């Protein structure tokens, strides 16, 4: 159970959009990290990835996803659902990435809970269990849209530090 829950940093995308969102110089003084992401994309793609320390390798995971009419499981690195430009206007998805013991020397697990919003049949809800097979402490986090996409204005990300004492 968290003893303290502290907002470390927040970001909101401006009018020019953003190719990605990156938190740098993350302090090592917390126990766990929680990244809350709410985004919309400029194109028809609606996925984004989480990366650590600028590294794109050694990421793995399993996800369970429903889309309003079916359920599927995937073997894929941790991802979040965004909002494509075909979904209901002015709506943004909601995703949590929880990373326990981010500053330790063990591999880092990532728990994902992600939903998209759409006033139509197809909307996504995904749960994921991921792993970054690295012994490095996490000092930066990148939120990267799939397919070279862009986050639109008012997309936002929040980084929280959780301490257990």
């Amino acid at each position, binding site marked *: 159970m968290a003893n303290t829950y502290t907002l*470390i*940093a*927040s*970001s909101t*995308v*401006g009018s*020019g*959009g*953003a*190719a*990605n*969102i*990156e*938190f*740098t*110089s*993350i*302090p090592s003084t917390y126990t766990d990290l929680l990244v809350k992401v709410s985004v919309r994309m400029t194109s028809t*793609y609606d996925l984004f990835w989480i990366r650590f320390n600028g590294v794109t390798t050694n990421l793995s995971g399993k996800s369970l996803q429903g889309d309003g009419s079916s359920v599927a499981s995937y073997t894929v690195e941790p991802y979040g659902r965004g909002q494509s430009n075909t979904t209901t206007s002015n709506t943004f998805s909601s995703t949590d990435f929880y990373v326990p013991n981010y500053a330790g020397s063990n591999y880092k697990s990532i728990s994902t809970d992600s939903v998209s919003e759409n006033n139509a049949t197809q909307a996504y809800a995904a749960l994921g269990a991921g792993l970054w097979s690295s012994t490095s402490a996490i000092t930066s986090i990148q939120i990267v849209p*799939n*397919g*070279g*996409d*862009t*986050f639109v204005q008012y997309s936002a990300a929040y*980084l929280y530090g959780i301490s257990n004492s």
Partner: protein
Amino acid sequence: MPNKLIINCETGEQTEVELTAEEIAQREADAAKAEADRVAKEAEDAAKAALKQEVLDKLGLSAEEVAALLA
């Protein structure tokens, strides 16, 4: 080309930084791969739908009737 949004957690400063040539090239490669994946998935979905209909036709059943049987 959009910039990347960097937030320094020590200072709280938020800055927009131009992508490097390498990052731009990576975005373009990602875009090409995503499009190829989308096309491949569409083809796979179409093939699955065709196979499913073929089986339904052989059985002489509708999808709703099969769903009722399996419920």
